[in-house]
């Protein structure tokens, strides 16, 4: 847990430095007649962020290694599998959406997650996935006219477009 806290503080310090490096592209100084320049707001805010993160880092570093009543682990061991499935599944789904579209990625994710992580029956998993797909198509595409990403499966939808638009 202490390592996680130090790592977060360090990551936030790095992030603020990165922000600052970007902010200097615009004037960060004070113009006599009009106040701060365009880069001043992001620059000095990131500087404040760096300061806070640094204080937290030093404070955590100097604190006793294990505080009482605090969990020694970052993610509870029994939740690790499910967490990994949710986070990894989400990343894989978004990546697959870029290639094959939402109508391939989302049902795969839902069926896989509900069946294997939730231990629900196949029928339940398939029914929920089918319901979601129908909702996506009729709510977003037909009603709101928002075309969802379809990747290489786009041509398969031409007949449906012809039918509903």
């Amino acid at each position: 847990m202490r390592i996680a806290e130090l790592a977060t503080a360090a990551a936030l310090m790095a992030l603020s430095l990165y922000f600052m490096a970007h902010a200097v592209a615009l004037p960060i100084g004070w113009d006599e007649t009009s106040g701060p320049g365009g880069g001043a707001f992001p620059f000095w805010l990131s500087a404040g962020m760096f300061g806070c993160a640094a204080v937290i880092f030093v404070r955590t570093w100097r604190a006793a290694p294990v505080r009482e009543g605090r969990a020694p682990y970052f993610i509870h061991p029994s939740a690790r599998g499910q967490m990994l499935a949710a986070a990894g599944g989400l990343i894989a789904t978004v990546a697959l959406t870029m290639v094959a579209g939402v109508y391939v990625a989302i049902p795969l994710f839902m069926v896989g997650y509900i069946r294997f992580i939730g231990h629900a029956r196949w029928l339940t998993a398939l029914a929920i996935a089918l319901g979601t797909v129908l909702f996506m198509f009729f709510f977003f595409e037909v009603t709101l006219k928002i075309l969802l990403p379809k990747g290489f499966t786009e041509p398969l939808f031409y007949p449906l477009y012809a039918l509903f638009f």
Partner: protein
Amino acid sequence: MEVLALLADGFATSLTPLNLVVLTLGVTAGLFIGAMPGLGSVNGVAILLPMTFIVPPASAIIFLAAVYYGAMYGGAISSILLGIPGASTAVATTFDGRPMAMQGKAGLALIAAAVASFVGGTVSVILFTIFAAPLADMALAFGPAEEFALVLLAFTTFVGLGGDDVVKTLLMIFLGLALSTVGLDLISGQPRLIFFDLPGFYSGVSFLILAIGVYGVGEVLWTIEETRGKPSVMTARIGFRDLIAGVRALRGSVRAMSLGSVLGFFVGVLPAAGATPAALMAYGLARSGSKTPERFGKGAIEGVAAPESANNAASTGSLLPMLTLGIPGSPTTALLLGGMVMWGLTPGPMLFIEQPEFVWGLISSLYTANVAAVAVNIALIPLFVWALRMPFAVLSAVVLTLCVIGGYAPAQKMHDVWLIVGFGLAAFALRKTEYPMAPLVLALVLGPLMEKALRQALIGAQGDVTVFVTRPISGVLIAIAALLFAIPLIRRLRARRAARRMV
């Protein structure tokens, strides 16, 4: 009496068939979301906001306000039946709600919660109606200097009253404000903070993307980690007779409910305080003011009534500064504000003059939403009992899917979906290491307003910084902000002095 006429006009807007349907749908959705462990009003509003493009802006806001209300009612359901608060705002409801359910009085507890929520909601909406117009009138005199001072005040309440680690709160405010500057500089129009030269960053980081990341993806990961054990559901059967008995049993709780309602409203108005502390304070006051405080924690009906009336009242209270001043009082109202800006409505005093039918339509819909929420809540209790048995994996799969689609729909960019994934993972790590999330979301929403107000005020005063303290209203606001900022420092000094005395 002018207010009553305006309110009557408002009902003409909110009672149209479309708005009534939207309201009922919103309340029902909110009830379900609130009842689900781990999801509260802020998650519901974040996830459902992209779906509201289907209706006109006024109806969309009515829908979201109804979701907000419904979720406040719904939070009590899992507090009582599962012993896990459905949302953080319903934590205090578990103290006596769970013991009541254990004693076989789950139905009574649910009815008490619903009726108390109704009382809290109604009392606070009346207070809201009384205070809204005068506050908006006062705010008309505000220029950029006052706006800046007000935003500063909102942030310092998080530092002074938020109760989280001060340095971490400050850091989250800085991070949110820094993220809000991504995109084009609003004065010079030059691009800034375009990371990795990705074109997606030119339009900035949308508050909605951050909110879906934090309150959708982040929340699912958080809840998976938190609720490893399987919670047990208490059953509740409710007939008409139970309803009468419930209302009768509540007669002893009138004091607790009225106290909770008024206290909740005023605590809710303060940014950073909000519904959770309001409910806890109301519970504490009801117990210390009771003749039989020993019954509390063992199934006292006042212990359910007080926090439930307070958290509903607080949610109305936090709408007041959002609508009249344009400064949200909670993360949920920050999202409502962001949504209104997206639809071209700028909350603040001018809204009361330019769009009276919208403002009063929304206010009157709060009355209707309360009636709808209490009716739907009690009618659907058996359904909630059933729905709470749904495995969490099903809920998380549905929520994650809605995050992906809802994140894509507004701007139709995969860039935003990847940002949601990133924000979600980061939010989990940050929450795990005890960084508060509310200041981050509020800072991102208020950032553009703050920077614009600051720079406009300075350009107007030709670079003279004293403009913020020499204008009377702005000066007073800045003084209060400075005081709030000093609270943690004073507290620490006192603690240190006390520690020295101990030695």
